[in-house]
């Protein structure tokens, strides 16, 4: 056997032993990847199952949560409505409370005023009772005087009754005399004046005027010289009566007299008297007529 072969055998032996030692060391110290894989796979499946369970529970909880959320939302809406209603009631109650306080204040003030008024009224009542006592005393006195006065009044009433009878008789006589006097004075355009009251205090008695002017005025509306008749513009409505005498004038000139014969409401016809001589002084339309010059 050659030396080279021997060397190679020794080297081969050493290399084999060292390589085997390395391989044995490596393999013994190597990690068991299959076991690790299996354990990881098992853990992965367990984790996945846990995930599924968790998802299922999550979904269940989510559904329950959604239902509870809806229910809670409904409750919240109902509670909000209740809150709104309660707030409205609270406002109304506050307003009512404020009104009640105002009323309370006003009633307190009114009660104070009423108490003052009662005190004043009590004072007034006391005064009135005192005055009533005085008045009753005066009333008793005046009652006695009244009885005396009533007796005197009855006596005077009897006298007045007698005087009224006399006055009625005098009034009838006055009426008859007035009629006679009116008939006489109306022919001359006069009227009996109303008697003026005679003063009774300090003046002396005086005679009232017996007559006054009628003072009717109008105009001639037509003239009939052949029959000596004329028509004037005033009638019974103005106070014209039969027998009245009107004086016809033209400016400052006297024309004639017109004695009323016939009367109508708005006009009257009369007889012409005292006609003046001369053409210019003959009566014509638009001449003025009046009862007094």
């Amino acid at each position, binding site marked *: *056997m050659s030396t080279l*072969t*021997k060397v190679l*055998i*020794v080297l*081969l*032996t050493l290399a*084999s*032993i060292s*390589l*085997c030692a390395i*391989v*044995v060391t490596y*393999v*013994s110290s*190597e990690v*068991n*990847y*299959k*076991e690790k894989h299996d354990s990881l796979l098992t853990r992965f499946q367990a984790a996945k199952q846990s995930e599924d369970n968790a998802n299922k529970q999550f979904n269940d909880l989510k559904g329950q949560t959604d239902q509870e959320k809806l229910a809670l939302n409904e409750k919240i809406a109902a509670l909000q409505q209740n809150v709104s209603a309660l707030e409205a009631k609270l406002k109304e109650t506050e307003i009512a409370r404020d009104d009640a306080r105002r009323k309370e204040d006003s009633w307190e003030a009114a009660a104070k005023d009423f108490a003052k008024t009662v005190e004043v009224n009590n004072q007034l009542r006391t005064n009135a009772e005192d005055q009533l006592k005085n008045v009753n005393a005066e009333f008793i006195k005046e009652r006695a005087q009244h009885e005396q006065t009533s007796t005197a009044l009855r006596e005077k009433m009897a006298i007045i009754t007698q005087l009224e009878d006399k006055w009625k008789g005098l009034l009838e006589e006055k009426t008859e005399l007035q009629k006679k006097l009116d008939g006489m004075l109306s022919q001359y355009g006069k009227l009996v004046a109303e008697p003026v009251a005679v003063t009774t205090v300090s003046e002396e008695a005086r005679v009232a005027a017996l007559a006054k002017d009628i003072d009717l005025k109008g105009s001639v509306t037509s003239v009939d010289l052949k029959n000596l008749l004329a028509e004037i513009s005033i009638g019974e409505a103005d106070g014209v009566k039969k027998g009245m005498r009107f004086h016809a004038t033209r400016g400052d000139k006297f024309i004639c007299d017109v004695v009323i014969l016939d009367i109508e409401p708005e006009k009257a016809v009369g007889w012409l008297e005292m006609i003046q001589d001369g053409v210019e002084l003959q009566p014509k339309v638009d001449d003025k007529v009046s009862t007094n010059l």
Partner: protein
Amino acid sequence: MIPAAPSHGKKITAPDNIYTALLAVAFCAVLATAVFVAYQCYTQYETIFSIQ
């Protein structure tokens, strides 16, 4: 193989059986390593050559 007789004046050399024994030791070491690796593969992966 016949061991060589010692001779004076010559270099002392090991007999050839030693080298045979070394080869046997190397073979045994390789075989034991292969068996150990196979055992490890089987115990860990339940197979020797391929992973299922």
